Every structure is written in structure tokens, then in C-alpha cells.
């Protein structure tokens, strides 16, 4: 992944530094050269000026020597002075010749011309004439000659030469001032240049660091977010330096981490789901176990109860038969014992029958054969049968139905009605009224069996349809029964798709209600079906 950087930050930095050095060196060299040139130029000018000043001084001295020697000659008539004047005149001639190429301004050129003219005139005309006048002693002529303009010219030229010398000195000063100023300008320019180079370099370095710092900041933030487990969206830097490589590596890393995290999350979810499934299965198993335990408990309880229920009539049968066998009894007692034995044997038979019946119903082996029945007719038959043994009770049958046909198992429904009506008789006092009421709504037929008996305590109602459940009241024990009747009724009514309910006010009587579904419209009521 990490390869050579085409534009490495180090190289960029090195480049900036080298560029800075190069520019600084170039600047220094240029400043040095320009300074040298300035100095050289100044020196040359200064030298030329000095020469010119020398020449002018030479001109001045030779001119003055010439003129003053001549004056001395005239005043003292000394031949040596004259000779001196001639020598100086030659000097002056040489000086003027030297001065000629140096005369640059028009004033200097004019001065040169005037000097040359004056020397020529002075040496060729004034001096020879004056020599003659001195030799002749003609002072008047000399005086006249000088007064004719020689003195004026001499004075004028001396003034001019002195002015020239002063002008030259001023020029030298000016030149020096100019040199100084140029040097100063050069220094200032150099300083500005150095500052400029430094500023540019600093700017470049700053830009370079900014180009590093910003992406680094972004990467840091992204890394922190990634570490905190957040989703990271980071764009890859299209750069060819270390940061580009770092960015590529980081994006690759982030992508790998996020992919792994997704994998982990998916895996984790799967695990959680598996665990939930396991827990669900465990709970189901636990539920199943509890149900089995409960069933086992119920079974033990049932076995215990059944054995108890069987032993009680057996105890009577066994006891009375033994008494009859071993004791000599009167005829009346014998008859009483036999009746009791018969009764208990019947009770035992009923118990076994009911128990087997209920077992069959509960195990699903119970089959109803449905046909078209009118419950009213069945109830009339039941009342007829029951009233034979219940002479002290009154029966009432009220029919308020609009529908009279049901799909039902005639025999089983008779079993239910017999059970409910004979119960009502058993639990009602003598002279009590047993009222059966039939009605229907759009979907169901409702049959109520009402007695004026003891009623049932509210706490007992939920247990009423359980096997072998008898209300904890000694008055009821005398009445007998197997304790299975209502459980069987419930099974039969439920097999018909109906419901059996009870409402009771303790001490006033009970109402058992059977709700049976009416056949759907158009359905053949005599259509025979089977249901469990």
C-alpha cells in the first residue's frame, strides 16, 4: 500500500527551503554586484574629477606664475623673472593642452578658448612688446599696454579659474552625496527584497502546513467517531503525498472495520435470534413439563378420588352382606339391608358407567350422531320420566322460540336434560317448582332450567363442572350422585358447539342455561354429521 510519494511533504518543504535560499543568495549576489559597480563608478568619477582639479590647479598656478613673473620682470627688470615667465608660459601651454579634453561644459570650453587666446596674445604680442618697453625704459608704454585690457583680462581669468576650481569642488561633494544616496537606496531595496522572500517562504510553508493540518484534523475526528462505534463517511483525498496515502489507508481501514462491525452485528443478531429461539423452546419445554406435571398430579388425584368413590359403596355392600351372612336377622332388616346393597350396587354401576363415559369423551373417542331434533319434545319426555319419582315437585315448560329445530344427538341431549332436571328435583325442597324455559335469538337456542333449591355459593360456581366436585355441604351428601353428571353435561354441550352456564343466588335457587347454536340458514337440519 505504501509506496514512494510523488509529491512528498518533505520534498515540498525542502523545495520551499531551497527556493528561499536560492532567492536570498541571488539577492545577495545582485546587491553585492550592484554595490561594487556603484563604488567602481564613483571611484572612476572621483579620480577623473581629481585629475581635473589637478589640471585646473596646474592651469591656475602656471597662469599666475606666468603673469606674476612677468609683473616682477617689469617691476624689477630682472632677466630671471622674464625667464621664469617664459618657463611658466610653457607650463601654462601644457596645462591648457591637458585641460582641453577635460573641458566638458560650455563654460569650461569657453574658459579653455579664452585661456588659449589669452596665452597666445600674451606671449606673442604683450610679452615681446613689454620686453622691448622694459629694455627701452618706456614705463609709460608699459602702463598703457597693461591698461589697454591686460590687467582686466588677467583679473577676469583668475576669477574664472578660481570659480572653475570652486565649481569642481562642489561637483565632487555632489557626486559623493549621490553615491551615498545610491548606496542607501541599494541597502533599502536589499532589505525589502529579503523581507519579501521571507514573507513568501513563510506563506508557502503556512499553506503547506494548512494542507497537512486540515485533513489531519478530519482524519482525527473520523478516527474518534470510528472508535466510538459510529458510522463514518469520509472522502478519500486525491493527493500524492503522505496524507493521500494516509487517507487511502484510513479509508481502507474504516471500510474494513465497518464491514467487520456489520458482520459482527449480523452475527450477533443471528445469535440473539438463536438465543430467543432457544429460550422460547426452553419456555415451551418448561410449559410442557409443567403441563405434564399438572396432568400427572391430576391423574394421581383422579386415581385417589376414584378409589375413594369406589370404596365407599363397596364398604356398604361388603359390610351389609357380611352382617347378613353371619348374623340371624329379622325379615324386615334383611329387606332393608338388601335394598341398601342394591342401591349401593346401582350407585357403583352408575359411577363406573359415568366415569367410563367421561373418559371416552375426554379422550376424544366420544361420537355424537347429529340429526334434526326439537329439544322441547326431548324435555317433555324427560319431565314425564322424572315426575314418576318426584311426586312432590311441580314442573313448568315455557316455549318462546321462533325456531324449533336443532342439529343434535337426541340420546345425549336427553342425558343432559335428565341430569339437569333430576338435579333440580334433588336440590329443591318438596313442593318446589322446576321451570324450563326455551327461547332463541338469531344464532342460538337458549334453554334455562330453574329450580327453587339451595342455590350455589358464588365461590363454588367455577368448580361446578369439575369431576367429583361436590359442594362442601353435608345436606347435599344425602342426595347422592356420582359427582360426574355436570362434567358429562359440559362435554356433551361443548360437543354440540354450545355452552353451559349457571347463575345462582345462594338460598334462592339456581338457573342452568344451555346455549346451543341454531343451524345456519339453508342448511339441512336432518343432515347427519359426526363430531367428537
Amino acid at each position, binding site marked *: 500500500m505504501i509506496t514512494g510519494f510523488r509529491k512528498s511533504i518533505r520534498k515540498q518543504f525542502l523545495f520551499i527551503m531551497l527556493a528561499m535560499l536560492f532567492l536570498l543568495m541571488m539577492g545577495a549576489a545582485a546587491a553585492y554586484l550592484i554595490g561594487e559597480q556603484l563604488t567602481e563608478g564613483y571611484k572612476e568619477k572621483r579620480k577623473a574629477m581629481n585629475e581635473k582639479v589637478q589640471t585646473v590647479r596646474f592651469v591656475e598656478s602656471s597662469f599666475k606664475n606666468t603673469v606674476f613673473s612677468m609683473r616682477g620682470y617689469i617691476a624689477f627688470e630682472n632677466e630671471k623673472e622674464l625667464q621664469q615667465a617664459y618657463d611658466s608660459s610653457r607650463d601654462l601651454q601644457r596645462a591648457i593642452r591637458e585641460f582641453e579634453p577635460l573641458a566638458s561644459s560650455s563654460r569650461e570650453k569657453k574658459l579653455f578658448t579664452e585661456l588659449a587666446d589669452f596665452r597666445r596674445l600674451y606671449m606673442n604680442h604683450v610679452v615681446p612688446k613689454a620686453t622691448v618697453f622694459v629694455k627701452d625704459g618706456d614705463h609709460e608704454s608699459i602702463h598703457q599696454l597693461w591698461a589697454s585690457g591686460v590687467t582686466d583680462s588677467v583679473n577676469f581669468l583668475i576669477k574664472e579659474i578660481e570659480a572653475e576650481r570652486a565649481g569642481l569642488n562642489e561637483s565632487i561633494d555632489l557626486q559623493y552625496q549621490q553615491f551615498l544616496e545610491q548606496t542607501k537606496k541599494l541597502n533599502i531595496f536589499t532589505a525589502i527584497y529579503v523581507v519579501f522572500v521571507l514573507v513568501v517562504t513563510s506563506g508557502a510553508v503556512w499553506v503547506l502546513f494548512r494542507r497537512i493540518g486540515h485533513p489531519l484534523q478530519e482524519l482525527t475526528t473520523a478516527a474518534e467517531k470510528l472508535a466510538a462505534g459510529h458510522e463514518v463517511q469520509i472522502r478519500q483525498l486525491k493527493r500524492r503525498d503522505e496524507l493521500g496515502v494516509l487517507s487511502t489507508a484510513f479509508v481502507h481501514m474504516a471500510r474494513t472495520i465497518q464491514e467487520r462491525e456489520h458482520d459482527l452485528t449480523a452475527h450477533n443478531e443471528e445469535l440473539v435470534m438463536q438465543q430467543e429461539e432457544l429460550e422460547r423452546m426452553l419456555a415451551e419445554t418448561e410449559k410442557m413439563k409443567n403441563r405434564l406435571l399438572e396432568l400427572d398430579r391430576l391423574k394421581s388425584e383422579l386415581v385417589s378420588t376414584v378409589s375413594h*368413590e369406589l370404596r365407599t359403596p363397596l364398604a356398604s355392600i361388603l359390610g351389609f352382606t357380611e352382617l347378613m351372612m353371619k348374623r340371624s336377622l329379622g325379615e324386615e332388616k334383611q329387606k332393608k339391608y338388601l335394598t341398601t346393597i342394591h342401591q349401593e350396587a346401582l350407585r357403583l354401576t352408575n359411577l363406573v358407567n359415568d366415569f367410563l363415559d367421561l373418559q371416552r369423551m375426554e379422550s376424544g373417542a366420544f361420537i355424537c350422531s347429529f340429526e334434526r331434533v326439537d329439544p322441547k319434545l326431548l324435555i317433555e319426555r324427560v319431565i314425564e320420566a322424572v315426575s314418576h319419582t318426584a311426586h312432590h315437585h311441580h314442573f313448568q315448560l315455557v316455549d318462546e322460540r321462533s325456531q324449533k329445530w336443532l342439529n343434535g344427538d337426541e340420546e345425549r341431549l336427553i342425558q343432559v336434560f335428565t341430569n339437569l332436571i333430576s338435579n333440580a328435583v334433588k336440590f329443591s325442597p318438596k313442593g318446589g317448582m322446576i321451570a324450563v324455559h326455551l327461547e332463541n335469538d338469531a344464532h342460538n337456542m337458549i334453554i334455562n332450567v330453574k329450580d327453587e333449591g339451595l342455590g350455589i355459593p358464588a365461590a363454588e360456581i367455577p368448580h361446578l363442572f369439575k369431576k367429583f366436585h361436590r359442594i362442601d355441604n353435608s345436606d347435599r351428601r344425602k342426595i347422592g350422585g356420582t359427582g360426574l353428571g355436570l362434567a358429562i353435561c359440559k362435554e356433551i354441550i361443548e360437543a354440540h358447539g354450545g355452552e353451559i352456564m349457571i347463575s345462582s343466588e345462594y338460598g334462592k335457587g339456581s338457573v342452568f342455561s344451555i346455549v346451543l347454536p341454531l343451524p345456519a340458514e339453508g342448511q339441512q337440519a336432518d343432515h347427519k354429521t359426526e363430531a367428537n
Partner: protein
Amino acid sequence: MNILIADDEEVLRMLIVDTLEEEGHVLTEAVDGKDAIEQFQEGKFDLLLVDYMMPRMTGIEVIRQVRETSKVKIVMLTAKTQEKDVEEAKEAGADFVFPKPFSPFKLIELIEELDGEQK
């Protein structure tokens, strides 16, 4: 002997009363547990015959309550013959547990035995 018989089954009470009266015992009937306690407190008895399963108050509860004040002989008559039921009755204070169904003459023998012990 003065005997109190507590059983909710009328037929069984009749059997026991007929069996024991013939032997010269005096019997009083109670139709359930509560009745048994009331009868016991009113009369003076040498022996209690108590059924296990009775409405309002079970035989075990009757025995426990009687044992709080009396050392009278108690026989429990029971259709529950599992070992744990017998243990429960003995713990409550029954002198003997007599399983249903039973032979009336075995019951007579048992009562004679208990009578002998008492004398």
C-alpha cells in the same frame, strides 16, 4: 362403650350403628366434622370413629381439635389408604387407621381390643 361415629355417608353410618349396637355399644351419629366436634363436646365418649373425607371439616381436623383437650381413643375410617394418608392421620393423633371397605366383625374385634387396653 359410648361411641361417636362421624361420617357423611348415611348408609355407612347405618352399617356401623347396626353392627356395634348389636354388641352392646351406645352410638351417637354426627353427619360431618363440625357436627362431630359439637357432639363430642356435649357428650361423654369412650371412642371416636371418624371418617377422613367429610364436608365442612375433614376427619384430620376433627382429630387435631379433639386431641387439644382429650386423650379419648380415636379410630380413623378412611377410603384413602395410601401410606402418606395413614401417616397424616397417625400424626394428627389417631390411635388406629381402619381402611374402607372393611369387615364389620373386624371392626368389632378392634373395638374390643381398644376397650381391653383402656381397662
